[in-house]
């Protein structure tokens, strides 16, 4: 646009490819941790690598994985969401109410359940963005409220999805003809792609990173930070709601007492995947890898019949090691 001579120092073309390669490599190496663990179990136990166990691992990663996907957005903004565990439960319970008590059609009930999750997220977003309550507190409070409401609404009893036969298929059925590949895993894959696109290619993703990187500067740049925060927490809530539906489908029931503790597991998956709790940095592929690392680890240790008390010691140590290797690698580059 300007005709003036520019100084030679600015050579913008070159590193874009190199930069991308490096990004790929980094992900590949995070992936490497997963592969190492996976291979370890393959050699340690010959029962580990079967189709059925493989899909079992993926299905086991589904609920935490879905929660982790949504919460990745929140964590990138520099926030945290402790309400995803019991929020998921409340979504499951409400799905039960819609389908079983109210007798709504399957898809209406499912969408209703997801919307309950979205509503929980929106309230979190409101409390954080508008009232200015720190995310930890706002979502901790929501965690307690959702846990209580799940019990109240369900009458402290599971709600069974007997009247809606197709419901169980959502998680464990298989729409791919020929092979036994659980739908739940498909849902996880599709949602991971959706999340990756949202985060990487849309304005929502851009602002997620901007807010996490420097909220004040983003606001002064004319971005309506409050509005976007509410949207981001709501998006996380959609994932929570979906996790609730998948959970309920897997258990053919809404279990009102479940859920506490799932949030830590999901957050751990996110952070193992390289997303920083300080905000501004993170990726969906990392989160997926983080969730898989957790699922493979748990499954492998169980397959090997490691005594329960040693399992948690082992998981703790492997998490430490995986993250430390990741740090070493980044220092190198």
């Amino acid at each position, binding site marked *: 646009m300007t005709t003036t001579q520019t100084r030679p120092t600015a050579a913008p073309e070159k590193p874009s490819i190199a930069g991308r390669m490096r990004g790929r490599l980094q992900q590949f190496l995070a992936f490497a941790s997963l592969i190492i663990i996976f291979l370890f179990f393959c050699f340690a*136990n010959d*029962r*580990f690598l*079967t189709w*059925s*166990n493989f899909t*079992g691992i993926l*299905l*086991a990663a589904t*609920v935490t994985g879905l929660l982790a996907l949504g919460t990745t957005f929140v964590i990138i903004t520099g926030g945290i969401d402790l309400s995803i565990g019991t929020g998921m439960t409340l979504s499951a319970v409400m799905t039960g109410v819609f389908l079983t008590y109210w007798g709504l059609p399957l898809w209406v009930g499912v969408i209703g359940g997801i919307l309950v999750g979205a509503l929980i997220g929106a309230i979190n977003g409101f409390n954080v963005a508008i009232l200015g309550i720190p995310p930890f507190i706002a979502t901790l409070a929501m965690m307690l409220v959702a846990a209580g409401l799940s*019990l109240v609404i369900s009458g*402290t*009893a*599971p709600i*069974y999805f*007997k009247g809606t036969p197709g419901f169980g298929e959502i998680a*464990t059925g298989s729409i791919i003809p020929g092979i*036994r590949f*659980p739908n739940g895993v498909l849902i996880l894959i599709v949602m991971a792609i959706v999340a990756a696109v949202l985060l990487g290619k849309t304005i929502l993703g851009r602002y997620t990173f901007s807010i996490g990187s420097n909220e004040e500067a983003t606001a002064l740049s004319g971005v309506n930070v409050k509005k976007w925060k509410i949207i981001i927490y709501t998006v996380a809530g959609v994932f929570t709601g979906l996790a609730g539906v998948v*959970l309920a489908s*897997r*258990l*053919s*029931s809404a*279990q*009102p*007492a*479940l859920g*506490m503790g799932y949030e830590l597991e999901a957050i751990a998956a996110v952070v193992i995947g390289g997303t920083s709790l300080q905000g501004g940095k993170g990726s969906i592929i990392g989160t997926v890898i983080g969730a898989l690392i957790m699922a493979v680890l*748990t*499954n492998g240790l*169980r*397959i*090997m*019949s490691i005594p*329960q*008390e040693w399992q948690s010691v082992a998981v703790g140590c492997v998490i430490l090691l995986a993250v430390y290797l990741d740090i070493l690698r980044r220092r190198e580059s």
Partner: protein
Amino acid sequence: LTGCSSSGSTDGGSDDAASGDKPYIALVSKGFQHQFWQAVKAGAEQAAEEFDVDITFEGPDTEADVDQQIQQLQTALDKEPDAIGLAALDSQAVDPLLQQAQDAGIPVIAFDSGVDSDIPVTTATTDNLAAAGEAAKQMAELIGNEGKIAMVVHDQTSITGIERRDGFVDWMDENAPNIEIVDIQYGGGDQLESTDLAKAIIAANPDLKGIYGSNEGSAIGVVNAVQELGLEGKLTVVGFDSGQAQIDAITNGVMAGAITQNPVGIGYETVKAAVAAINGEKLPKVIDTGFFWYDKSNIDSDEIQAVIYE
């Protein structure tokens, strides 16, 4: 909201209790969120209605929360009840508070599992060791007294978890030399975790013949695993407790059968005994509320229908 819906009476609450127009019995259980405890509570409320007393019923979030239970017991004592019902998570940990109750002249009724102390005037309980032994016996018969089996237990530290594991294992050791228990894992009574756990056990042991789940959540987890893997009928599943899912699994054959306690009876007997204690009546040391094996053949019988809950 300020009313007390846990109370069996219409206008319950401790204020009324304190004002003394009705006897007040505080029940501190081991939990409240699970179906089993809700059934105990239902039995207690039934008795409260019948004997015209006020009750409250509360319990910690999980059976690991010994500290939470102590605080609940402490608060219950501060409400100066006329009697206390207690399902202790750890007998010794509650001992000082039981002492305090005794000093204050408040009778204590133990329920669900015994309290290792002289203070409770009576205990309304299931013999978990024997109940688990019965489950083992049924399992052995069902698989023809030989082969590999595994166990999904709800807890490795709580008394019920330990007793339902050990009762099962001991019976097998003594009576079924050809049955091998290849794995015992713990799923916290969480249905989802127990499902994934049971799937891993099955994956690791393709020649498995049966799995035992030690409480409602564990048993349902095993049932889910079998269904997700399409192994219905190929694996013998023995459960514990009841609830809709187990009843269905038994009716449609995924589960061979289960042990049930009599939770409603436990709750009812506890309150009844408390009333008796308040009135200074003499009570037996133990009120055995019993346990039952139920399967497809007897599930519709009156005897079983009376003790299972949906």
